[in-house]
């Protein structure tokens, strides 16, 4: 039973992720709010399950020539280093506090999404896919 609930939660996150919207931003709240998974564990499982998906979509994008790797290291290296530092920092934070922080982050992100959504509705024929991904 537990397995099935988790499977459905993953599928919900996966659908959004596959559509190019932040799957993890939905998966983590579903797991913590509805399934009672601890915040740290939900974040960990989101990171792990993202990896195979990312590898597959990377191959697809590479084939369709959408990758532009010029200067990517300037972003990827500082991002990786700081994510390790912040990951270590968070290990010492209680789950409740982390959850509140995550909630605040979600609210900010959703406001930004709403603004870009309204903008592209107004822009009409603009075919840009909003501003969200993985």
């Amino acid at each position, binding site marked *: 039973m*537990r397995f099935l*609930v*988790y*499977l459905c*939660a*993953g*599928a919900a*996150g996966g659908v*959004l992720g*596959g*559509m*190019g*919207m*932040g*799957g*993890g931003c*939905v998966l983590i*709240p*579903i797991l*913590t709010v509805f399934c009672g998974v601890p915040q*740290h564990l939900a*974040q*960990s499982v989101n*990171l*792990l399950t*993202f990896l195979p998906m*990312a*590898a597959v*979509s*990377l191959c697809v994008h590479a084939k369709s020539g*959408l*990758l*532009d790797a010029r200067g990517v290291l300037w*972003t*990827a290296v500082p*991002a990786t280093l700081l*994510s*390790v530092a*912040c*990951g*270590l920092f968070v*290990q010492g934070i209680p789950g409740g506090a*982390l959850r*509140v922080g*995550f*909630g605040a982050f*979600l609210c900010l*992100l*959703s406001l930004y*999404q*709403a603004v870009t*959504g309204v903008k592209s*509705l107004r822009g009409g024929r603009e*075919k840009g*896919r*909003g*501003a*969200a*991904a*993985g």
Partner: protein
Amino acid sequence: MAAIKTIAKQCGAGLVTGAVNGLFGGGGGMVVVPLLQACGRPPLVAHATAILIILPVCMASAVVYLFGGWFDAELFLAVGLGVLAGGAAGAKLLGAITPAAATLVFAAVMFAAGVRMML
């Protein structure tokens, strides 16, 4: 110098992305796509290239969480299978609905979840 400014911009984008992804175990992609667009990449290329950045970032932070002892085999297996199946379906759905409408619905759901988590 324009070149130095570009590099600084790219590093800044990386720092913000890394901080978000490390702290919240996700969401880095949501942040890095608009930042890559701000660095001059067209939307679709920004989406694709974002994964190139997020992949090593997620790998590194996943290791940190694993060392922190946060792993549950059943949870990982169930969610992983769900994500793969859902991901394939989502990619097919992509053409079926208008992006702006999807973005707005998505924003509303995320906002509700965010408020719920802060309470």
